[in-house]
């Protein structure tokens, strides 16, 4: 029998190669915007950062100089407040998920975590406005922190659940066999064993909210003064970037670049800390 078949392997190999180069090309091309953004940010940002920028309050339009001290402090206060609000709830909800794997409440909790993860940040700003700003009749840092805390919550819940699931069951059994009550087993044995993962989750959560602007627009609102009272409007670095960037004054643009640079460095440092921390503190089983 004489089977005639075409040898098209050359074309197939060629096609394979072309597609490979296409994929490589697109991959490298997608890195270009990042390099452009980072380069522009560093170029514009570093030149506008100096001692004055970090330690002075904003000056009125027309006067040179001035800094963003109030925004730096405001960002720190907002982050601390929202961490205080979200961490206790998040960790306990995470423990609930890892301990009670099935059941109606666990199912609903899992669904809620997914939903919270996907809510656009601007909607959370609206919610914080309706819940806190409207009844209190004033913009406040507290309302901003609530919006940010809701954003952070799903990340903490998810990381707590994921880490606690990895803690070996034998550890729990050993503790219970020694007669340690259930709640002490969870709090003193299981939780410390998963601490690194939970801390990583918290750091990533902070990194996520540190640069958020949308939820702060009509909650923390921004202010030109140094303010430590969470019941008053407060400035934050992302708000500075937004307000100054859309202004027509080149002096303010420079300040906005400085604030952007600070913010990016902060977020990157948090991400890096989370990553290295995760590998260093990790308890291996």
């Amino acid at each position, binding site marked *: 029998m004489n089977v005639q078949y075409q040898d098209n392997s050359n074309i*197939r190999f060629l096609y394979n190669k072309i597609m*490979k180069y*296409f*994929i*490589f090309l697109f991959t490298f091309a*997608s890195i270009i915007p*990042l390099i452009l*953004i*980072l380069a*522009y940010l560093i170029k514009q940002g570093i030149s506008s950062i100096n001692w004055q920028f970090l330690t002075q309050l904003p000056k009125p339009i027309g006067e040179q100089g001035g800094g963003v001290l109030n925004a730096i402090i405001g960002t720190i206060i907002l982050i601390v407040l929202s961490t205080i609000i979200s961490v206790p*709830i998040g960790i*306990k*909800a995470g423990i*609930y*998920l890892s*301990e*009670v*794997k099935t*059941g109606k*409440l666990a199912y*609903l*909790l899992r669904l*809620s975590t997914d*939903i*919270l993860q*996907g*809510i*656009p940040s*601007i*909607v959370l*700003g*609206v*919610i914080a406005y*309706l*819940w806190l700003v409207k009844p209190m009749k004033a913009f406040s840092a507290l309302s901003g922190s609530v919006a940010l805390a809701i954003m952070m919550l799903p990340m903490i819940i998810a990381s707590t659940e994921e880490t606690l699931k990895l803690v070996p069951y034998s550890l729990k059994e050993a503790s*219970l*066999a020694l*007669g*340690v*009550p*259930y*709640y*002490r087993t*969870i709090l003193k044995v299981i939780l410390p064993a998963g601490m690194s993962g939970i801390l990583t989750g918290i750091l990533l959560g902070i990194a996520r909210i540190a*640069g*958020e*602007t*949308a939820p702060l*627009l009509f909650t923390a609102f921004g202010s030109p003064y140094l303010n430590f009272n969470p019941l008053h409007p407060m400035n934050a670095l*992302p708000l500075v*970037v*937004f307000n100054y*960037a859309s202004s027509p004054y080149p002096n303010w643009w420079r300040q*906005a670049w400085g604030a*952007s640079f600070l*913010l*990016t460095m902060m*977020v*990157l440092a948090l*991400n890096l800390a989370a990553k290295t921390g995760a590998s260093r503190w990790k308890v291996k089983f």
Partner: protein
Amino acid sequence: MKAVEVESVGDFEVAKISTRLDKMSKQKSSYPSGFNKDYLFDITLTIMASIVVLLVGAILVSLAIYSIPVFKSEGISFLFHDVWNPIANQFGAMPFLVGTLLTSFLALLFSLPFSMAIALFLGEYFSSGKIALFFQNTTSLLAGIPSVIYGFWGLFVLVPLVRKLEIKFGVLPYGVGVLTASLILTIMIIPYAASVGREVISLVPQDLKEGAYALGATRWEVIKNVIFPYARSGIFAGILLSLGRAIGETMAVTMVIGNNNQFPHSLFAPANTMASVIANEFTEATSNIYLSALIAIALLLFIVTTIINIIGRYIIKKLSI
């Protein structure tokens, strides 16, 4: 909670009983009683879990309650009316719906080849090693930059570029508009879509791929005939999740879309999305019905992104089991 205790913490039941016996034998002793505190602990966990669930319910309910006035006065035509004129009390959300859909679908279209390329590059060609590490770090870096900074960069770099393009095409050179917003969104969703895609592609079983290789398939043929069909639903889920991201993205879009409440008739026209109109006009909303109209848009945004998200996550969860 009960089922788990009985089934897997059998030892613990014994511990409980012995604690109780101990308590009975040494009345008023200082022996730490585990029983009540366990109960308390359970209750605390349940309450915290319920708080999170109630939170989501409360968000939905309060958005719905506050958006009643506008639906009362405009009816369902609020969604289909294309005039938004707060001074004349005319509220139609159509321009923003179209603006959101246009920008996010365009961004999805632009980003698809890039994100698929990265996903394949990291999931198939270089799944480990230094190059993979470099690309993973850079994409996670891209994902970490706050959106307001993307907007700022877009305003100063992308807008002049688009303006030049518009002069070439002979349209009004606004610089800001639907196209600029889509480009910024594209840059923003590439890393996210790529990381979901990579995850899905790495789930394809090794023996399926090896089977295809053993039959003499080239790498591209394996990708086309094994990986894509297997990961199809996962890739679809990744696209959905990125779409959810793009729809909800606020700051970057607000800064470069031009904030025009008219219906966008061309790609270069300044427009507004659902998120950007809330960001722009919420603090200016003086009348009750104006505020209610904006909250109704927020409700819409919440519902759309939630549905998209739940479907996407459901598909991915089903895949990874």
